[in-house]
């Protein structure tokens, strides 16, 4: 089922929770709504579920307007952050509930229940009460309950946030597996970018009630459209500066930015800038390397001071500074140097590694 948001806005009194939200979720996708707490992602999910009214705009299921339909009529399955398992019903009763509402025959009902119990590996817990289950088991019951009705859309609201790290990884795999098995259009809300990057077919990043960018995980990481996305998805160095012009003789163009670090040259930019426009430059820490040999050109080479170094085994994290500008760098295979805190260092990054972005205050216009 394809889900479309058309100019959806949600207001509580004067407070805007979600503004002018436009999104198409493809049928069969595992689509993520990602953003920090309070960005409106849960509100968006709840509007999709029909648990919140829509102030303006439309929500379409396969082209059919469901904006005014109550939750009960949308055919969705939802997993709540706190699971919302009914404590007075056994696992079996919890799962059967939705099916009974659909008036399934006894055989069909049993077949379905067994199916989801197997998918979620809960068969031997069927007669327990939710209170007698562990967090991970409860989570699977919530999932099983939602899946049993074969929903048009499966909605997951921070489903893993109450689990410990190990269980979380396990459940990620489970959800991915079940999604592949069932092919249900799934909308997954989380604030954990790793969850989104590792699982999603598509990710929508939200911020302050607005949709900032929707893209597959790789594109989102490599081509963030804004400093916010760049910063939220993975780690990055964001350096403010002013646009200094483009050299179009170079194939694809070579763009320059004046920053406190010095002139940064790059082949990549998002948007059109005039000379003097304020811009942000995003450089991923892993793109930065030490310029140990003098053979390299001076382009994108800077003298900085090492504040401190964190050794992590397979990598090292460096915190560097030049004046007020702080730079993070992650070095792999960096066994050749012997730097200590306070040393002067020369760093370098390739021309394709930096990305020029419009500053965040110009957001919204671009999206």
């Amino acid at each position, binding site marked *: 089922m394809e889900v479309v948001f058309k100019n959806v806005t949600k207001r509580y009194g004067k407070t805007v929770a979600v503004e002018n939200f436009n999104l198409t979720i493809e049928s069969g996708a595992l689509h993520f709504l990602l953003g920090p707490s309070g960005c409106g992602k849960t509100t968006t999910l709840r509007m999709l579920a029909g648990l919140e009214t829509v102030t303006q705009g439309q929500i379409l299921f396969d082209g059919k307007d469901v904006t005014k339909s109550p939750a009960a009529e949308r055919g969705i399955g939802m997993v709540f952050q706190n699971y919302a398992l009914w404590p007075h019903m056994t696992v079996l009763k919890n799962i059967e509930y939705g099916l*009974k509402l*659909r*008036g399934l*025959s006894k055989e069909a009902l049993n077949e379905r229940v067994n199916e989801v119990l197997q998918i979620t590996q809960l068969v031997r817990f069927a007669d327990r009460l939710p209170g007698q289950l562990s967090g991970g088991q409860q989570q699977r019951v919530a999932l099983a309950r939602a899946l049993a009705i074969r929903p048009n859309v499966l909605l997951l609201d921070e489903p893993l946030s109450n689990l410990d790290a190990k269980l979380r990884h396990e459940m990620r795999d489970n959800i991915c597996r079940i999604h592949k098995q069932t092919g249900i259009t799934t909308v997954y809300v989380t604030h954990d970018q790793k969850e989104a990057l590792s699982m999603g077919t598509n990710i929508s990043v939200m911020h302050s009630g607005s949709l900032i960018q929707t893209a597959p995980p790789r594109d989102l990481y490599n081509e963030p459209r804004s400093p916010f996305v760049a910063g939220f998805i993975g780690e990055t160095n964001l350096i403010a500066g002013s646009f200094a012009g483009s050299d179009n003789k170079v194939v694809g163009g070579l763009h320059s930015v004046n920053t406190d670090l010095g002139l940064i040259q790059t082949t990549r930019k998002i948007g059109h800038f005039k000379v003097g426009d304020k811009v942000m430059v995003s450089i991923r820490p892993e793109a930065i390397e030490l310029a140990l040999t003098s053979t390299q050109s001076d382009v994108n080479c800077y003298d900085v001071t090492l504040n401190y170094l964190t050794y992590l085994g397979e990598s090292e994290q460096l915190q560097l500074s030049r004046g007020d500008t702080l730079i993070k760098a992650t070095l792999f295979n960096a066994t050749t140097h012997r730097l200590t805190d306070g040393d002067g260092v020369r760093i370098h990054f390739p021309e394709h590694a930096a990305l020029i972005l419009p500053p965040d205050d110009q957001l919204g216009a671009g999206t």
Partner: protein
Amino acid sequence: MKSNRSFSAQKKWISATLSLAALMFTAPVHAGDSLTIISPHRKSIQNEYVPAFTAWYKEKYKTDVLVDWIDQGGSNDDVKFIKAKFAATPKTSGIDIFWGGGTTTHAEIASAKLSDKLNLSAPLKKQLPKAIGGSNLSNDEGTYISTALSSFGIFYNIPMLALEKTPAPTTWESLATAQYKDKIILTDSRKSGTASVMNHVILESAGWEKGWELLTAMSGNARQFTASSSDVIKAVVAGDAAATLAIDFYALAKIGDLGADKLGFVLPTGKTIIEGDPVSILKGAPHRQVADRFVEYILSVEGQTILMLKKGDVGGPKIETLARLAVNSDAYKATEGKRVNPLNPNTVKGFLKYDTDKQAAVRHVLDDLIGTQLVDSHKELRAAWSKVIKDGAKPADVKSISKAPVTASELTTLAAKWDNAVFRNEKINEWVKFAQAKYASAGKAK
């Protein structure tokens, strides 16, 4: 399938609801005649009269009669109730007879025009005197007639008076002496017709000013004003108060139960009255003919002897002795020598002549006046009275705290405007201020 299941479940609910509703809303159907009586009379009266009347009716009219007996608590509650019924349906209250509650109650019903004229048969009329002991049995309009009589007196606890070294009371004045401080208990006349009549009797017997002195001193002595005239009896029995004002048969029943060595009852000679306890047929009585027959029955010799004879006597009560006084002269002749209360009010002298209509006319004003001066300001009055007693109860002091804000003749003028509730409450506030000022300056008039 699901729909079938839920449907049958719904059906079950619906049928259960319907049958329950049927259970709740169906009134029993009765084939013969019926009669609805509202009465503050005790259960014992009901228990005697309902079977007796039903049997009499069956014999005389060859029809069954179903008597519904309604009681809302006391005479006051019953009056309020029929007023509420008439307010909802002005033509009829759905009730035929109002029986008992004292003359004031029936005067109240009559003045609100909620009763119809009675039809008494000529032979019965001959057996009924116009007045007994100075009180008329009937009002001028003939809407009510007394079916029993009661006298008012003082009920007292003999051992308690002995312990307190207080002489037994003989008349109203006894209760107004300083010896009785904190030893008596009274009833709020705004809520009790009995108390209202007694206040009136005391004012009548002693005169307005002297009467107020008596009432004020008695109230100053009183521990409390109760809401019902039966509560004071219990307070005397429990040893909380030594004496109270009471109706004869209440007091006699208690004496009969606990013994004449423990409790006493006295009628202040020449200063009390005989009051009738009437019956009225209510306006638009749904069973008027049966109602007439009922009135005829309770006034007949047959109906009247039940009041006076002992339990088990021929023509007497079957379950419990009632020990009341009847009105039918022939009934006295028929029970000579066999009556529980040997008193024959037709022959005994010494009762005050009592004008019920006059009392009824000013009753509301007088009740409010006494309410403001004595009941609502009771705390202040008690303090003032204590001070006056401490100074030796000088006549001037007593006079000063007993002053009424209006004269007896003004009562009648005020009574005409008393239905105006704003006017009434303005007066009440004025009187409250009067009482407060009067008691605050008690003892200072030296």
